[in-house]
């Protein structure tokens, strides 16, 4: 079983990590880059499959050379057997379609017969949720690669290796929310929902999970960025620069505005914790709603 998980580096939006300039714009340079949280969820789905069925988990990203650290983060925090980075100035500033095109070609070069491809839902920066589905569409219309069903918003997944099938539960939204159970043949393309949960009901799986986690952490700790990360540029992928990166992107970002601050509407009474009178006034507001005995 060969699995590939796709990932991207994003600014670390956690409080205390993220930094803004005086105009309220994100300062990329001062904000650390981390693996997109939703992609870790996708990688957990790949790890769950490896624990139960064995095989290889490859981790692939597209981005600047610094993204080798993102791949290392995935290997160390979740799991990966081998790491691939599609990296080239020509690939920069791509929108989702130009990204999908590049990544699908990377997948084709890595292994046209890959059994399972995993992608996370939205990235924490672009937040489109498009790249996974569009990558599969590129595969679908690429003669070099076998077509595969696209299964999105997956919250649980089981693989039946013998019969080459996947069963998944997925979330449907709308005026009512539903959980669908679907079945499809391998190979398949899985986009995990943020609510995906891996499950390890059997003791032997839990043991194997532990072993694999130890092993991947050791591998990550001894990673040699030059030796252990395979890097492909647009020439290696035979991609025309006019069709990737900014030049190949249908969309552009015309303007980025900080979220406008709402006008002041209430005059807040300022209270410090050791201002007894103030705290008492706050408590008076809370008291009428206290739980009874």
């Amino acid at each position: 079983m060969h699995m590939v998980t796709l990932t991207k580096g994003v600014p670390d939006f956690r409080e205390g990590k993220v930094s803004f300039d005086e105009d309220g714009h994100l300062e990329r340079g001062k904000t650390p880059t981390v693996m997109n949280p939703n992609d870790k969820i996708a990688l957990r789905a790949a790890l769950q499959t490896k624990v139960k069925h064995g095989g290889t988990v490859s981790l692939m990203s597209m981005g600047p050379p610094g993204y080798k650290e993102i791949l290392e983060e995935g290997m160390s925090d979740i799991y990966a057997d081998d790491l691939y980075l599609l990296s080239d100035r020509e690939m920069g500033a791509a929108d989702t379609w130009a990204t999908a095109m590049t990544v699908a070609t990377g997948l084709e070069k890595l292994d046209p017969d890959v059994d399972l491809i995993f992608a996370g839902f939205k990235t924490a920066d672009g937040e489109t949720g498009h790249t996974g589905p569009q990558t599969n569409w590129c595969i679908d219309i690429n003669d070099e690669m076998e077509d595969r069903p696209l299964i999105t918003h997956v919250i649980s997944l089981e693989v039946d290796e013998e019969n080459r099938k996947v069963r998944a539960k997925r979330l449907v939204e709308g005026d009512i929310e539903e959980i669908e159970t679907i079945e499809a043949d391998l190979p398949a393309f899985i986009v995990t929902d943020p609510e995906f949960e891996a499950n390890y009901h059997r003791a032997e799986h839990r043991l194997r999970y532990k072993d694999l986690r130890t092993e991947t952490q050791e591998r990550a700790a001894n990673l040699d960025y030059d030796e252990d990360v395979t890097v492909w540029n647009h020439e290696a992928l035979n991609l025309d620069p006019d069709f990737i990166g900014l030049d190949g992107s249908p969309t552009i970002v015309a303007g980025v505005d900080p979220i406008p601050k709402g006008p002041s509407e209430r005059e807040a009474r300022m209270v410090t914790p050791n201002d007894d009178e103030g705290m008492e006034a706050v408590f008076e507001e809370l008291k009428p709603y206290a739980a009874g005995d």
Partner: protein
Amino acid sequence: MVELDPTEHEIADLGPKVNQIDDVDELKEMLALEEDGEDRAPVKTLIESRIETLEEEDEEVDLSEADIGDMTIAELANAIRGVDDADLLRELIEQENTGKERSGAISQLESRIESIEGSGDGDGEELEYVPPEEKYPNLDHPTADKQYIEGVKGEHYRDMWVYCETQQNELIDVSKEMLGKARELMDDYNDKYGGDEDGNPEDVVAVIIGDDVADLAEEAIAYGADYVLYHEDDELERFRHKPYTEIFCHMCRDWDVEFRDYYEPRYTIFPATNNGRDLSALVQGELDSGLASDCSDLYIDEAMISNPAKTGKPGDSIEFDRVLHMPRPDFSGFEYSTILCIDKPFRDFHPQGASVIPGTFDLPEPDHEREGESIEHDIDLPDDWFHITVEEYDQLEGGVDLTGHDVIVCMGRGIDTRDPTEGIELGVELTDAFEDAGFGLTRGVITASYEFGGHVEQYVREERQIGESGQVVEPELYIAAGVSGAVQHKVGMDEAETIVAINTNPDADIRDFSDYFIEGDLYDVLPRLIDALEEGELGAVLAEASDD
């Protein structure tokens, strides 16, 4: 008469709308309307501050006298936007070089010079198409040969197509909201441009795919469609990516049908639901065009583009008209971006696509007198489009409903000054100390990659999110702990009767819409409030509070 009568709107949805109005007189008229009406102070502040911003922008800065060192880069960028004197700009670069030497300022000035003078090579010359084989001889398999690149140019595009999602044989609300918005956009469009390039009015086209959906056509017309195209088949009862994408694309590109005498739609709009968003990505991909997801507004306007990827030459600026502008919150809710889908030399990017957040646009009143035409689409559906089997589906029970409680306790990213698991525990404990309270979270907590202990994971779910893309609550008492107060959060809670904020940063935005602001660490304050609620009285400060 003003386009936007403030007295007919809640403050929450006025904010973004007012900030798009550029006409000071219109704003003043709106201000007068509000004063004659409810005379709501926050609404007036909102309009007044917009007027102030516009008047500041209008003040001509005389750059030959100015000391640009006093200006922020953004102010400088605004001030030079209308400057066509390259020598003056060069002087300013000189001034900056001997002054603050901000690289951002210099690059703003340089790019303005470039857009006035052009890059110098090949000015005014027609771009010449160079086949990829010649342009990149080192590549042996030019990408243009891949099937998914259409590479069409100068085709004919018309109309706004709206994908109407259904559930249980009903149009879902967002489908009606989109039809209403599309109607409004295309009415304005036809007024402004006098219809398409040949002067014929453009239409709103609704697309409905499913089982037994023909009956919905009438409703779609009542909500604003001119044409309804539907495809019904019992195989299509449940959404599946492949057949839905193929059918949509066939309808709008390959179908030989009388009403569509054009190549592809000009615009396509989809709901930003799980399935709608997927479909939008696949359809736009297949049509070799682009899109923006989860838009919070849409408008059609001109766009001046100087991006060389679109103009073909660095330094050129080209005005594109009839461009769908697609503003959307991104960067985990920290910024708004406006996305445009723009043709490039030798390659069209149409339709311009968008998905919109459910609830963004008002649910219109249906007009059952409206006339429209419904057309059935019928093609054979090959078996291999159905390689996914839906075995069963269950409706989820309600989820968490935070509306209707007396009290809401909401936790923000401030929980990460310690183990966030502990923060969730405290929030839940405080919630339990009230008779009737709900527990909510900001979007930030949900999108952050915190590692939570297993016992609190059930509380950290999107279904507890309060704000623009979550639930809107109006409790008697709202307690916001460690919440900074982003505007998207604000619209979800600012109708609460009393708002108590707990935050270590006294300058946090939430102060502006709180009644009480406890400047302190939630990890100190919450336990004290919990004890007080349980004991019935407020105890003394437990530990010596620090001074910092």
